[in-house]
């Protein structure tokens, strides 16, 4: 069986998080992704933690290892005229070039879209940047927290009397990478099926503001009604518990609708409350809600998160166990589906990585590892451009590769 993107050729000039996650997906689905890195230092994500055994090393960044699986790495000095020439040759038979430099960089290297388009008219050039290739903020910087701030959702995340709070880790950037891969694939299919080469201009600001997690619908709420969301403690009108709650060994995340009430009572072994008028008839009364929550929390405090989830789900009360990574790596479902995959790597050895995002029945997903810096320089230049040993040595001596 072949991979889904077999035959797709990608030249990857991206670095750090967003672009590399987008091209990781392409590579994991089977595209041939050649990652172009700076000679010497490489992708700066190589210097971002977490590190293997907490020891910083260019080949030991867990983030880099996860975001660059199945790619080949070549080093190329794009500021050197011959390095630029090699890149233009490489894109001659490529389908897609993805880059994530600040917008002024590609033109300054003599690699503006028109030049790339002349070198290969069917090429899709995807440019990922903070604010897009135009507009007043074009050259501004961005980080995880500022990206979330711009999307309009951070303003409503947190407590009313406290500061707005970001989401975890760099999740918005990885989400942006997912969107970028979709955009790249869409443009690539357009090129493959209809012969249209083009430039795709991806602005992280735009991707944040159109996020399906509340952002986009909030824009319509404001346009229709002038209303804006507020940060809130998430207190619900109804008595049915539908939030995160502490239990014996951590937390559980519940979700309930009004009609979940019998299941809630059954979960906490209080079927007598199902029809109890004191609760049923005063279900939105703050004091009655607090009274019930006390009973609810007392029961939770005597049960573990996994047990609560299994019991609640069997009763039709939606619940997820609040796992920490130690639990997640042992989770029955992820284990049964073989989500975590064992990947070997010359520097960090064999480790478990997050695996396939989907299971395709006809086109297998391939586990693979991230490349060492410049691991495939000779291989790619020899195979694609027919450079021989002497020429490669010269390019090395002249610090082109």
């Amino acid at each position: 069986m072949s991979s889904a993107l077999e035959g797709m050729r990608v030249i990857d000039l991206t670095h750090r998080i967003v672009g590399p996650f987008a091209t990781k997906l392409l590579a994991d689905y089977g595209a041939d992704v050649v990652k172009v890195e700076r000679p010497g230092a490489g992708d700066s994500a190589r210097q971002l933690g977490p590190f293997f055994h907490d020891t910083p090393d260019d080949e030991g960044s867990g983030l880099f290892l996860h975001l660059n699986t199945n790619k080949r790495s070549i080093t190329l000095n794009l500021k050197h005229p011959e390095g630029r020439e090699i890149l233009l040759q490489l894109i001659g038979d490529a389908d897609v070039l993805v880059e994530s430099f600040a917008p002024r960089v590609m033109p300054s290297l003599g690699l503006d879209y028109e030049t790339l388009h002349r070198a290969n008219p069917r090429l899709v050039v995807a440019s990922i940047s903070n604010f897009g290739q135009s507009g007043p903020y074009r050259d501004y910087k961005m980080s995880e927290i500022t990206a979330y701030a711009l999307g309009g959702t951070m303003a409503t995340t947190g407590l009313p009397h406290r500061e707005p709070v970001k989401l975890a880790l760099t999740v918005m950037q990885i989400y942006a990478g997912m969107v970028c891969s979709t955009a790249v694939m869409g443009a690539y299919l357009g090129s493959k099926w209809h012969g249209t080469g083009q430039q795709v201009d991806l602005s992280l600001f735009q991707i944040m503001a159109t996020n399906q997690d509340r952002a986009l619908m909030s824009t319509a709420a404001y346009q229709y009604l002038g209303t804006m969301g507020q940060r809130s403690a998430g207190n619900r009108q109804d008595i049915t518990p539908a939030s995160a709650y502490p239990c014996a060994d951590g937390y559980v995340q519940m979700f309930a609708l009004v009609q979940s009430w019998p299941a809630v009572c059954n979960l906490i072994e209080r079927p007598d409350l199902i029809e109890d008028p004191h609760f049923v008839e005063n279900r939105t009364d703050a004091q009655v809600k607090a009274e019930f929550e006390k009973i609810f929390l007392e029961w939770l405090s005597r049960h573990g998160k996994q047990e609560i989830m299994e019991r609640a789900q069997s009763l039709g009360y939606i619940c997820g166990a609040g796992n920490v990574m130690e639990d997640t790596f042992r989770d029955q479902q992820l284990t049964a589906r073989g989500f975590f995959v064992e990947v070997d790597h010359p520097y960090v050895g064999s480790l478990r990585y997050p695996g396939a995002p989907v299971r395709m029945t006809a086109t297998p997903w391939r586990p693979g590892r991230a490349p060492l810096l410049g691991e495939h320089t000779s291989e790619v230049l020899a195979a694609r451009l027919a450079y021989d040993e002497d020429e490669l040595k010269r390019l090395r001596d002249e610090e082109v590769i």
Partner: protein
Amino acid sequence: MPALPLEGIRVVDLTVVWAGPFAAALLGDLGAEVIRVESLQRLDTITRTATDAKAMHELVADVDPDAKPWNVSTNFTTVGRNTKSVTMDLRREEALEAFYKLISVSDVFIENNSPSTVEKLKVDYPRLVAHNPRLIMMSMSAFGATGPYRDYRAYGANIEAVVGYLLLRGYADGEEFVNSVGGFSDACGGATAAMAVLAALHHRHGTGEGQYIDMAQSEGVAQTLSQAMMDYSMNGRSRRSTGNRDAERVPQGAYRCAGDDYWVALSCGTEEEFRALCVLIGHAEHVDDPLFAKELRLAQHDLLDQEITEWTSQRDSYEAFHLLQSAGIAAAPVLDQAQLANDPHLRAREDWISLTHPAAGTHAYLKTPIWHMSETPLPYRRVAPLLGQDNDYVYREVLGFSDEQYQRFVELGHIGTDYVTRS
């Protein structure tokens, strides 16, 4: 203009809530024809009625007096873009036959129900592939179609809890769960599913082979927890939330600005940025102070926060944003919807467009696709459909129904524009 990338691809959409409709929207944005199959007998409570649709019905000034709340839901009028709506009650045999016919002339079927619901509705892959051997079916259930949790139902927040995300986000001091709004995995689920469908279309184009795709939304959102997963894998550490802080970027946070509830977020990732910040906020003395050296800086975070707030609180959030960026520091106003609607950058890039929705009136919408394409700009072809708006097109043109057959489906309650039961 060149053909849209997915021109000629028909997607049948039986998705609910947020994640599935978002996947369908991304495919529609790329030019696919998305036909959303809805039922007059079952109100889609979240997709079509989120954000207080009843109140909206009463408040929208220019709303059609006969508009129905489910047609003006802010969730659906945005995520339902470039989509057509057909109604049929799949629980009845004659509708199921029509559905199978629709599948036979389509390319992709996308749904996000639990695996047992799909079987119960008789729209599982083995049944459908008999009607269309080239079909690509994307099933995006909460935890996947196999394994002990296959029939668990879950919303974003519950999925996120299981993969370990709940305990990694929010405040770091015990109040982390106060706003466990879970919708992030819906965004990830939609994007992950759309990408997988595109990969499957690529494969089918080359080989003629369709396929079934079993997607667990949990496994889609889990990709975003890269650092936490790799840290556990490499070092055995189970991380918890660090709030707005990041040990590799000090200082970082959201800081109060002038006015009521305005904030600016900033983050220093390099030594140059840290030095520029100290100078800008009037604390140049930290630049050469060994107590503020990179390795020790985290311990000074509270003090830095105080000093930054003294500076930001005297400034408007946009003013602080521009001053910080001009000094080379990553910063942004924490935008509210009013600011976002007027933001000069989005306006300059023409990311806001004006559209008229038959029930909601004329308003500004963020344009799609959510990126810019130079040759196939991919028009926002249509705002979200009213319930059953495309019954005529789908039944008559796509399925070839005669007048009699159409009328029979009206009488049987499959075709219509109103919910029969409003629960």
